[in-house]
Structure formats: structure tokens, C-alpha cells
């Protein structure tokens, strides 16, 4: 029975959105209501869990739950809930629930809504994970996850070019910031000696005094600034407005951009308090505050206005955090909360306007209040909060901000000008709020709107109503509502340094109030004076020439072009230089230790050389050298010689008593030679007189000479290395362990096989995957393979035979060949079952005697190749079902499932089990689950080789598009066979 503890609730809160996302992603695209209800229920449940957890953190305590992952590296999965993370998690989930309700009515039935909710839930889950992270690396992980899901959300209408480019821009900017953040937290972890958040908090003083403090601060700030759209990284946010409005309402009020703010607050106790922090954060915040507010005034798109206003408010919060004062930090947390409520409701209201009128252009809208009175009222209140009108929540945090700005008693230029700049920015914010409300909801009835405006449905307004009520309640009775939450959050950041403050509406007639009233007055006056002129204004005066987007795209295209240049300079698509570099690097790496420690042969006395063995090796050596010699013009001869060299190594294995290797070597040698033989036909012809007058240029001679030298160096290097190793005593390696434990632990006497399928089963699984990938790659490459022009035609002999068959009565093409091959073909077909029996024999006995899944698979594929050779591609595929992909897939699946089966019995992945079983007729037979794994290997190997074979074989029956005139000649059906 699972006991419900705070820790398990934490995991539930994190897991719920992701589970919901998974479920929603598998719903059919039309299940709009199901997806909506699912998402709503998930968000509501998660919100309830979050709210239920409040009691466990309200006293300033911290709930932690940790799962060790790689404890030796300090990597743990830690969930940590304190006042701050509770506040953010609750914000994310509650606003998330409201957005889900709103989206249900906003999204059009034509959109694949389940996918939308899947992204939204996954995004919410990432945000919850981010705020709950108790480990720095984990925090960055969720941080990048939010970037990724916000990319998907912004680009949800992917058929829209603006959505795509906006999403890409947001991803590039925020993910780049995320990389910086990763570097930053790694520095932080290095200074603190741990990635654990609590340890980092404890090391705060050490961090601020460290010489790595400045780089760490810079990197972390870049991460935070890119995420929360601070100047000069703010440009992505307006472009992200191409997203559906619920996404904007969610991302740009409570979540994505607040992640940057969260990060700044989270690290405030560690990083703040220095001059560097003050200078950077305050400057960036102030620039963003003023710039955002100024640009917002000149927006003609309602969402654009809100976007720039968001940037400006984020700048305000950043500015507060930069002031190095605890009270300012409290104000920052408070304003984060307030901004989330009023901005989410405003975005939703704009969504309703867009939805009901068909436009968001502020110049076209007018007098909507008479059509949608309720929405208008809600929007007016929310905009009032944004402008900082008394009795609304925005007013309170704005007062705190002004008080802090005035409190900055510094005998500096910044200290003296800050109150005035702050008032100016607030006046701008009043101006655009008034413009937004007055233009859209008041004035004469609107002319030629795309749609007849009307009031939004009841449930679409509900989320706005909830948020606006929150604005009102917090604004009027802050002490009763938000004060405890804010207190808990502030305490978790500031600890015992938490200042005393009072959240009251009336503090007396003081300087902040005067400035606040001044800002309201200035803003209203500005609208009265310039309101009409703003509608005619295209672009923003003063700063409109600086286009963030253009700069971004220039940088991006420079980067891409630079990367391409670099690729052209250092890269090549030719095989020979690549191989040359590879061998050269290997030679050098091998040489390095000898240069340092010198070369010395071992002391062991060599075994006497058996003359027979020497003779075999002489033959093998001659074969190898001759293969290299003839490879240039006589590929066929070279191939046969290579096979000779391979056979010699095979005989050597037998000689040195390793039957398993010999068997595998023999089989692999056969398959390779056959496949290479089949491929030879498609190679381009080599002409002897490549260079006119048989005069090879010096450049080419030099290159060839270099290649020969390199080959000799590599070969003799390997020989010397082998000599040095083999003349020494074997060190006490792990092989003894394998030999001793293979039977008692693995249940097999064939140590090689037990190592492959049991001790090193995971490696084998990896190798199987690689083999599958290689086979698929070969197949993909050969499918698009265009042979050299001279090898496109059928071989001469085949053409002659076809011509003779065509000429004679009653014969079909290929009859001559069939006649000639009748007896050999019949014998080869008879041999097919015999080879299959051999393959199964090798498979079954593999655990105890030489053989195993790999050898059996290769044997089986040799049988298949033989059939292709004897009867021709068409005939074989008429009679046999050749499904290499299925074989490969089922092989991999079988291996994985066998491995997973061990979990069922509480053993680690790929643990094998064996027992002797008494079978009727056969007697006592050893059975091991490793055999199942080996069958997986077997299937995969057959599939991989067959796939390559099929790819080569189908080249011959492919009709080429050499001559475009007769379209009937192209039989596309056969190409796909």
C-alpha cells in the first residue's frame, strides 16, 4: 500500500501533466472534446495536488525527495518544494487549467486539438519540473525541455510561415541561452562542489568570492535574459505571437518567460549582492522596461501590444531583482504573480476579440463594448491592473517598485535618475493600456469587420473572470489573500533576512503615491494628445530602425555560411582522403606511447615454427600482397586472392585450436566474397591509360607513394605491436573470470557464446542495433544508387543470350541460361534444406559447442544467397517469402524482450536463466533464455545480410531511366519489388 506522503505527491504533480500529454498524443486528431476534458482534468488534479501541498511548506519548511541516479558523479534526481517553487508551480498549474478551458472554446474544430493539448500538458510538466528541480543539471534539463515544447507550441500552426519562423527563432534564442546556462551552472557546481541546490545555497559566500563568479554569473544571466526576453534578446517574443492565443496567454504570462525570472529569483541568494550583479541586471532591466513600454505604444496589433508590454513588465521585475535589496526582491516576486494574472486575462480577452471579430488590428476596432459588455468590463479591469490603477493588484507591486526606486540612495547618476525613468516607463504603460481599452471597446461602432462581433460563450469567459476576480481581490484585500503565499515564497529566498513589509493599499500620502499618480496623469494626457496620431504611425520612432529580427537572421545566415565554408575547407565526400586521415590518425595514436616509453620486445621465448604452418602463411601472405597488387585493374582476381588470404587465417584459427573463430571466419569470408562478387558488376570500368601517353603526373605518383608508405607503416606497426604483446606474459585479465564462470553462472560450455549472449549481452544488443543500422544504410544507399554509365547495360553475355532467345521460336528470355544451369540449379535447390538444418544445428548447440546465433544466421543467409545465385532473383522471390526488414525487426524485438523478461523476475536487464529440462524423445536437454536472445541475433543477422543481398540483386532487375523517350519502358512496379 502506497502511503500518501508529501514526497509522493510531488512526484504525482510532476508526472500527471506528462502522463496526460502521452494519453492526449495517442488520441485521434478529431477527438476534440475528449482531449479537452482529459487535459482539463489532468491540470485540475495537478492544481489540487499543488494546493494540497501548501500546508507542508507554509511554515518555511522544504519538502525534498531524491532518487540517486549516478551518485558518484553527484547526479541525482531531486524534487525540492519550497515557498518559491510552490508559488510558481501553483501559478503554472492553475493558469494552465484556465488556459485549457479557454483553449477548448478557442481552438477551431479543424485543428488537430489532441496534439495541441499534448504539447500544452508536456510544456506544463516541464515547467513544473523546472521549478521543482533540486539539482542544477536537472534544472537545466527541464529548462531545455520548456524551450523544446514552447517551440512546438509556437509552431503549432506549422502551415503558417510566420509561426514556423517565430518558433524557430524562439527555439534558437532560448536554447542557446540554455546552453550558456548549462555552462554557468556547471561552473557554479564546480565552485560549490556539488550540483545539489541546497549545497549551492550553503556555499553562497564562497561562490561570490570565487574568481569563477563572473563567468558563471555572465553565463547564467544570458540564460535567464534569453528566456525572459530581456534586451537585447527580447526580439523573439513578439514573433512568437504567431502562436495560437491560448499559447501566448500561457507562455507569456505565467510560464515560459517567467522561467527566466524564476531562475534569477532562485539564484538571487547565491549570485546577488555584488556590484557586477547590480550593474548588469539593473541596466538590462531598465533598458527592457523603457524600450518595451515605448515600442508597445506604437503597436497596431493587439497581441503585439501585449507582447511588448510583457517585455516591459519583465524588465521591471528584472530591474527590481537587480537592486540587491531584499524588499525589492519581495516586490519582484509579487509583481511576477500580479503580471501573470492580468496578462493572462488580457491575452485571453484579445483572443476573444480576435475570435469574435476576425481581426486584431487596433485601427479597425472600435466600440466593441456594446457587443461584448462582459468581456469589455473584464478587459478594462485587467488593463487597469496593467496600468497600475489603485484597488487593483498591479497598483500594489507598482507602489513597491517606486518605493524601491526612490530608496536607492546612491550618489550616482543611476541612483538619481531611476525614479524619473521609472515614472516615465509607467506613464508609457498607462498610455498603451488606455489606448488598448479605448480603441477597442469605446467610440463609434466598428466599420467593415470580417465578422459580426458578439459576446463570447460563457465558458470561454470563465477563465478571464477567475483571473480578474483574483486581480480585484488581491488589489483590495492583499493581507487576507496573497500575503501568506508571498511571505512563504519570500522566506524561501531570503530566509531570516526577509524584511518586514506591509501589503496595504494606503500607506499615506508619500512620494511613491505622488509618482504613481503622476504616471497615471501623464499617460492619460499622452493618450488625449497623441491618441489619434498613433493610429497613423507606422513603425516605432527612435528605435524602429533597430530590427532585432534582421540582426538575428544576419547572424544566423553568417553562421550557416561559415559552417558551410568550413565544411568545404576541412571536409570531403571522397572516400580515399577520409580513409587516409583515419589510418594516419590510428598510426599516430599507436605510435604515441612508443615515442614516449620506447619500444621493447618481450622476454618470452617464441614457439618453434612448424614448417607446415609457415608454408600456409607464406601462401596467405602471397595471396594478400597479390590481392593488393591486382586490385587496380583485375578486381575479380583480387577478390579471389583476398578470399585465399581469408581462408589462410581461417586455417590458422583451426591450427591454434579456436574452432569458434574459425567457423565464424569461414562463414563471414564466404558471405563477404559472395556479396562483393555481386557488387563487382556495378563498379565503373578502369581504363589503363588514364593519363595520356602513360605518363603519370608527379602529383599522382607522390600520392600513391605516400599511400604505399602509409600502408606499410600501418602494417608493420601492427606487426611490431603484436610481437611486443605476444612475447610478454599475459596480464591477469578478465578472461579467466569468464572461463571459470561460464558454466556455473551462464549455463554454457562455449565461453565465447556465453560471453556474447550473457556476460556481455548488453554489448551484443548494441552491436545488433549497429548491424541493423548498417544494413538499413546499405539498403538506402543502394536504392538510390545510379551505376556508372558503362555498367548500366546488361553484361554482354546476357545480351547475346537474350538476343538468341528472342530470335528463336517458342523461347522466352532466360531460357538458355536456365537450360545451361539446370543440373547445378537442381542440386543447389536440394541443398537448401540441408543448409537450413546445418544452420539450426549451429544455433541450437551454440551455447555449449562452436556455433551460436551469429554463425547460424550467416549460414542461413548463405543458403539464401545460393538460391538467388542458382535460380535468379525473380524465381526465388516468387517462391520464398523474403522479408528482411521483418526478420531484422523481430530479431531485435526478441532480444530486447528476452532481456526485459529478466525484470519480471526482479533481475537486472538481460540476466539469463537456464535449466535442464527432460523432453520426451530427446532426453535431458539444457535450456537457457540465452537461446531466445541468440535466436534474436540469428534473425537479425539473416535479415541484415538478406537486406543487403536484396538491395544488390534488385539492381539487376531494375529498369533504368536511361532513355526518356519511351515512357512505357519504365515499369515502376518492378522497381519497388
Amino acid at each position, binding site marked *: 500500500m502506497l502511503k500518501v506522503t508529501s514526497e509522493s505527491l510531488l512526484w504525482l504533480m510532476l508526472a500527471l501533466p506528462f502522463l496526460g500529454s502521452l494519453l492526449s498524443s495517442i488520441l485521434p486528431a478529431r477527438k476534440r472534446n475528449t482531449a479537452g476534458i482529459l487535459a482539463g482534468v489532468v491540470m485540475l488534479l495537478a492544481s489540487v495536488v499543488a494546493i494540497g501541498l501548501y500546508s507542508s511548506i507554509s511554515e518555511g519548511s522544504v519538502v525534498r525527495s531524491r532518487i540517486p541516479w549516478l551518485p558518484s558523479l553527484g547526479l541525482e534526481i531531486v524534487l525540492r518544494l519550497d515557498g518559491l517553487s510552490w508559488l510558481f508551480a501553483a501559478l503554472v498549474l492553475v493558469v494552465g487549467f484556465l488556459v485549457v478551458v479557454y483553449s477548448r472554446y478557442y481552438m477551431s474544430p479543424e485543428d488537430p486539438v489532441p496534439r495541441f493539448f499534448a504539447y500544452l500538458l508536456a510544456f506544463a510538466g516541464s515547467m513544473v519540473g523546472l521549478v521543482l528541480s533540486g539539482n542544477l543539471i536537472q534544472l537545466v534539463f527541464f529548462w531545455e525541455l520548456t524551450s523544446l515544447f514552447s517551440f512546438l507550441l509556437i509552431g503549432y500552426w506549422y502551415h503558417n510561415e510566420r509561426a514556423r519562423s517565430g518558433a524557430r527563432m524562439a527555439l534558437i534564442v532560448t536554447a542557446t541561452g540554455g546552453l550558456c546556462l548549462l555552462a554557468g551552472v556547471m561552473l557554479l557546481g564546480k565552485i560549490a562542489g556539488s550540483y545539489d541546490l541546497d549545497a549551492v545555497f550553503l556555499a553562497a559566500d564562497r561562490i561570490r568570492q570565487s574568481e569563477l563568479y563572473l563567468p558563471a554569473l555572465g553565463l547564467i544571466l544570458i540564460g535567464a535574459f534569453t528566456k525572459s526576453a530581456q534586451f537585447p534578446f527580447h526580439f523573439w517574443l513578439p514573433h512568437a505571437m504567431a502562436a495560437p492565443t491560448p499559447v501566448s496567454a500561457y507562455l507569456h504570462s505565467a510560464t515560459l518567460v517567467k522561467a527566466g525570472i524564476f531562475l534569477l529569483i532562485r539564484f538571487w541568494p547565491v549570485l546577488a549582492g555584488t556590484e557586477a550583479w547590480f550593474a548588469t541586471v539593473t541596466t538590462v532591466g531598465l533598458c527592457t522596461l523603457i524600450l518595451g513600454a515605448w515600442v508597445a505604444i506604437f503597436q497596431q496589433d493587439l497581441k503585439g501590444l501585449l507582447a511588448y508590454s510583457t517585455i516591459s513588465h519583465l524588465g521591471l521585475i528584472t530591474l527590481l531583482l537587480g537592486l540587491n535589496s531584499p524588499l525589492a526582491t519581495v516586490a519582484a516576486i509579487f509583481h511576477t504573480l500580479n503580471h501573470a494574472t492580468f496578462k493572462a486575462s488580457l491575452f485571453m480577452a484579445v483572443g476573444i476579440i480576435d475570435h469574435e471579430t476576425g481581426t486584431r488590428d487596433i485601427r479597425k476596432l472600435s466600440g466593441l463594448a456594446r457587443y461584448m459588455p462582459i468581456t469589455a468590463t473584464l478587459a478594462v479591469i485587467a488593463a487597469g491592473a496593467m496600468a497600475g490603477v489603485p484597488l487593483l493588484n498591479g497598483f500594489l507591486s507598482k507602489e513597491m517598485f517606486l518605493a524601491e526606486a526612490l530608496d536607492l540612495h546612491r550618489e550616482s547618476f543611476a541612483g538619481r535618475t531611476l525614479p524619473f525613468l521609472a515614472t516615465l516607463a509607467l506613464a508609457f504603460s498607462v498610455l498603451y493600456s488606455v489606448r488598448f481599452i479605448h480603441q477597442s471597446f469605446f467610440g463609434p461602432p466598428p466599420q467593415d469587420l470580417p465578422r459580426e462581433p458578439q459576446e463570447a460563450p460563457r465558458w470561454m469567459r470563465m477563465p478571464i473572470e477567475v483571473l480578474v476576480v483574483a486581480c480585484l481581490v488581491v488589489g483590495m484585500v492583499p493581507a487576507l489573500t496573497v500575503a501568506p503565499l508571498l511571505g512563504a515564497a519570500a522566506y524561501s529566498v531570503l530566509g531570516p533576512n526577509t524584511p518586514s513589509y506591509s501589503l496595504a493599499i494606503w500607506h499615506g500620502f508619500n512620494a511613491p503615491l505622488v509618482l504613481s499618480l503622476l504616471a497615471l496623469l501623464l499617460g492619460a494626457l499622452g493618450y488625449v494628445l497623441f491618441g489619434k496620431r498613433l493610429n497613423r504611425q507606422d513603425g516605432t520612432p527612435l528605435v524602429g530602425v533597430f530590427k532585432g529580427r534582421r540582426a538575428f537572421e544576419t547572424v544566423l545566415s553568417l553562421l550557416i555560411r561559415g559552417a558551410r565554408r568550413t565544411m568545404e575547407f576541412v571536409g570531403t565526400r571522397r572516400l580515399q582522403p577520409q580513409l587516409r586521415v583515419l589510418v594516419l590518425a590510428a598510426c599516430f595514436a599507436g605510435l604515441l606511447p612508443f615515442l614516449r616509453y620506447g619500444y621493447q620486445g618481450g622476454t618470452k621465448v617464441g614457439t618453434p615454427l612448424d614448417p607446415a604452418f609457415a608454408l600456409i602463411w607464406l601462401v596467405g601472405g602471397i595471396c594478400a600482397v597479390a590481392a593488393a597488387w591486382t586490385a587496380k585493374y583485375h578486381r575479380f582476381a583480387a577478390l579471389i586472392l583476398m578470399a585465399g588470404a581469408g581462408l589462410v587465417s581461417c586455417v590458422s584459427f583451426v591450427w591454434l585450436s579456436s574452432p569458434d573463430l574459425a567457423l565464424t571466419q569461414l562463414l563471414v569470408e564466404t558471405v563477404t566474397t559472395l556479396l562483393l562478387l555481386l557488387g563487382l558488376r556495378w563498379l565503373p570500368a578502369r581504363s589503363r591509360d588514364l593519363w595520356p601517353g602513360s605518363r603519370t603526373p608527379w602529383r599522382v605518383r607522390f600520392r600513391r607513394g605516400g599511400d604505399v608508405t602509409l600502408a606499410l607503416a600501418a602494417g608493420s606497426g601492427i606487426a611490431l605491436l603484436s610481437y611486443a604483446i605476444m612475447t610478454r606474459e599475459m596480464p591477469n585479465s578478465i578472461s579467466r573470470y569468464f572461463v571459470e564462470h561460464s558454466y556455473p553462472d551462464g549455463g554454457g560450455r562455449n565461453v565465447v557464446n556465453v560471453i556474447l549472449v550473457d556476460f556481455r549481452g548488453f554489448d551484443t544488443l548494441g552491436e545488433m542495433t549497429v548491424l541493423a543500422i548498417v544494413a538499413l544504410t546499405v539498403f538506402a544507399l543502394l536504392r538510390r544508387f545510379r551505376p556508372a554509365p558503362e555498367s548500366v547495360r546488361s553484361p*554482354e553475355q546476357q545480351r547475346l543470350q537474350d538476343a538468341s532467345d528472342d530470335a528463336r521460336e517458342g523461347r522466352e528470355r532466360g531460357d538458355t541460361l536456365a537450360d*545451361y544451369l539446370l543440373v*547445378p540449379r537442381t*542440386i543447389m535447390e*536440394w*541443398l537448401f534444406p540441408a543448409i537450413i538444418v546445418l544452420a539450426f544445428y549451429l544455433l541450437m548447440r551454440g551455447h555449449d559447442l562452436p556455433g551460436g546465433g551469429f554463425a547460424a544466421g550467416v549460414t542461413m543467409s548463405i543458403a539464401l544467397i545460393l538460391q538467388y545465385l542458382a535460380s535468379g532473383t525473380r524465381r526465388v522471390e516468387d517462391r520464398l517469402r523474403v522479408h528482411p526488414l521483418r526478420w531484422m525487426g523481430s530479431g531485435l524485438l526478441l532480444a530486447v524482450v528476452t532481456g526485459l523478461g529478466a525484470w519480471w523476475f526482479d533481475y537486472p536487464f538481460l540476466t539469463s536463466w537456464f535449466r535442464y529440462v527432460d523432453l520426451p524423445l530427446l532426453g535431458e536437454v539444457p535450456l537457457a533464455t540465452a537461446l531466445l536472445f541468440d535466436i534474436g541475433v540469428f534473425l537479425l543477422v539473416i535479415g541484415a545480410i538478406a537486406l543487403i543481398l536484396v538491395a544488390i540483386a534488385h539492381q539487376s532487375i531494375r529498369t533504368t531511366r536511361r532513355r526518356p523517350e519511351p515512357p512505357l519502358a519504365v515499369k515502376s512496379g518492378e522497381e519497388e519489388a
Partner: protein
Amino acid sequence: MSGAPDLPGWAALLVGILVIAGAVMTLLGSIGLVRLGTFFERIHPPTVGSSSGMALIVLASMICFSVLRSRPAVHEILIAISVTMTTPVTFMLLARAALYRERLEGQSTGDPGDEDPVHSD
């Protein structure tokens, strides 16, 4: 071979004679391959090695291991069967290809209308 000293004298003698006879046969076949002139003549000698040479050596092996393990060892017969099954296939393929080429050449000299089928390389 570790088991060899345990063979009784008569068996050792028999096995030795058989093995050497088989090896001689195979050697004869190889010499023939080198010495003989035309393709169709050359196709025959290697079969000496793969038939009688193989048979003698398989017999030797059967006697040797039957005596050593004191029970009949007959699975060498499988080797004999598969060798007799598979070697002819190779030779037949070679002979067929040569025959085809021979006929084609004969045909082309008689028929001037055909293009020359002789390969240049």
C-alpha cells in the same frame, strides 16, 4: 593429436596408410591440374582429390575414432555426402560456362552477322 599414442599398432598402420594414400591422390590431382593443357582436360584431375582422396581420408578418420572411442564413428559419412554433392556443382558450373563460350565462338566464326563475343580482357 593427443589421442594418437593410444591407437593399437594395427590400427595406426592402417590409418597411416589410408591417410597417406588419400594425400597422394589429392597431390596427384593437383599436379594434373597444373600439367594438363586445355580447360576441359584440367577440369578432371581435381575431382580425384575430392572423390578418392576424400574417401580414403574419411575412411581413415572413421577407423581411427572408432578404435579410439571403442564405438563406431560414422558421422564422417556426412562429410563424404556433402562433398560429393557440392563439388560437382562447382565443376559443372565452370564446365557449362566454358562450353557456352566455346559454342558461341564457334557460332560467331560461322556467322559473320553476329558481333564478336570474345571478351577483350
